[in-house]
């Protein structure tokens, strides 16, 4: 499970894109890189360190393509956050072959939570999931 950490807008968890924002998740495992990418995505919308993990949601899906799985993971989290009116802080995901199970916890939007910009969805642009020398890296451009 990813723990809330300080993510600086415009910092190392992101890469350049003209109109939108590129997010990068890093981790010792594929799953951790997905959790990290989710944290980077939600940090575009709020200061995660100030979000209280009071309510949880869960999700599952089947996907053989790990890159498409990253996009589906992020988009399902965004959809659930809108459906339940929540902003998420913690993320977890497990993979069993083509089956992915995960979830997130957070709280309803509070007036005093600092707002960033809304992420509309994750795209296939600059989409890449791969293992490097120092661990896994999962990245894509998100539409804001």
């Amino acid at each position, binding site marked *: 499970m990813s723990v809330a950490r300080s993510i600086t807008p415009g910092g190392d968890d992101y890469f350049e894109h*003209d109109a*939108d924002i590129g997010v990068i998740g890093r981790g010792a495992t594929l799953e951790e890189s997905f959790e990290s990418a989710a944290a980077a995505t939600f940090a575009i919308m709020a200061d995660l360190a100030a979000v209280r993990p009071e309510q949880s949601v869960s999700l599952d899906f089947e996907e053989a393509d790990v890159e498409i799985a990253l996009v589906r993971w992020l988009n399902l989290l965004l*959809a659930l956050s809108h459906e339940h009116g929540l902003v998420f802080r913690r993320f977890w995901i497990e993979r069993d072959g083509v089956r992915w199970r995960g979830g997130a916890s957070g709280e309803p939007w509070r007036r005093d939570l*600092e707002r960033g910009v*809304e992420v509309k969805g994750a795209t296939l*642009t600059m989409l890449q999931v791969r293992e490097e020398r120092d661990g896994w890296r999962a990245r894509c451009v998100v*539409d*804001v």
Partner: protein
Amino acid sequence: MDLSKLKQIDEWTWTVPPAPGEARGEVRLYGSPELLATMDNKVMEQITNVARLPGLAGPAMTMPDAHWGYGFPIGGVAAFDPEQGGIISAGGVGFDISCGIRCLRTNLELADVAGELPSLARELSEKIPAGVGEEGDLKLAPEALDDVLARGAQWAVEHGYGAAADLEFIEEGGRVGGPVPQNVSPLAKKRQRGEMGTLGSGNHYLEVQVVERIYDEAAARAYGLHEGQLVVSIHCGSRGLGHQIGTEYLVSLAKAATRLNIRLPDRELACAPIHTPEGQQYLGAMNAAINCALANRQILTHLTRRCFSRLIARARLETLFDVSHNTCKRESHVVDGRKRLLYVHRKGATRAFGPGHPAVPERYRAVGQPVVIGGSMGTGSWILAGTAESENRAFASASHGAGRAMSRHQALKQWRGRELVDQLAAQGILIRTRSMRGVAEEAPGAYKDVNAVAEATEQAGLARRVAFLRPKVCVKG
């Protein structure tokens, strides 16, 4: 953009010559050398990839405000012929389906109500749901939402949001044909619950503007505009429902392209032939999202009118025009001397029908369709009129905004939201927002020169300038 890779066709038109033996459609980029030079090379790469898609009719084009997007560039226009295996692409429309601008003219002069602007700014920022996490008062269950998706702004008017007179000045009379609410997933409908009548965030805004200068008296008269008059512009789209449709179909069309053996230059160009079940499913869902956006802007128009009338009893706000800039529409155009029914993708590009076109409201038909180029909060916006020439040059399309000149990442490093709000207040522009980070990302300096975009749009024959609007109040999402 590396201009050495382009070939100039005329003063405002450029192309990317194909490599020897390369089979693809023509590419056309409109703009001045200065505007093109500010664009990322990715714009050229992306529009060249669009020109490789099946069934392209005529050239794949970029408008003078183009910038790097996903799939198609933003500011991209491309038409596809279903009888030639032409495709429809979710990345050619964008996630914010039917994002657009509703422009309202008022009966108010800036000189008469300047003292009311701070109160108006407060009222609008309190009553117009804006920004990430904000919901509207209208909560629609999925079943009720189907009616909105089927009937668009007509649904909104029938439910007390605005007047029937508004509908005449919305594209397609406020309701696009061909929506299939059943093609919209239950999750997309749940995501929209609470998001009808909301502005969203990012580059979305509601602005009170003053007509600072008229450039075309005849068109301005037809549009009911004069110098010193206040107008209101509302920039937003189909909200969570459109975003969810975009994300779901981007993935499903990418898989369909593989299954249908379509060779994509990049899988972000996910698409399916229009005449396939996959293409038709996306088309039906996208049309439903267009109606959602038209209803959303109609509801926001109603909320805006209430804010004005609470503070200024004599205020009257009439819809000047409502135009979308993220769509794919079935239109008739002449290509290679033959009239053809095409599916015209405009991603960050505005439809711009010229004088005499039957789709232009009768009141404006002699001068052409109103086109709105929305600028940054510190500079201004333009109203233009569609030209007959644009039909031949760009399937009757024009620019939609200033276009970003730098990334949000770079903007955050360069500006602080609070400082920008104070600087703009000193210039007489009141910014109201819950997101200072968002203000920094949307800094006026992060955009291209909107005046240069408007000039290039006119010089390239895409639309002609009618009026320049200066912002006075900006509610940022």
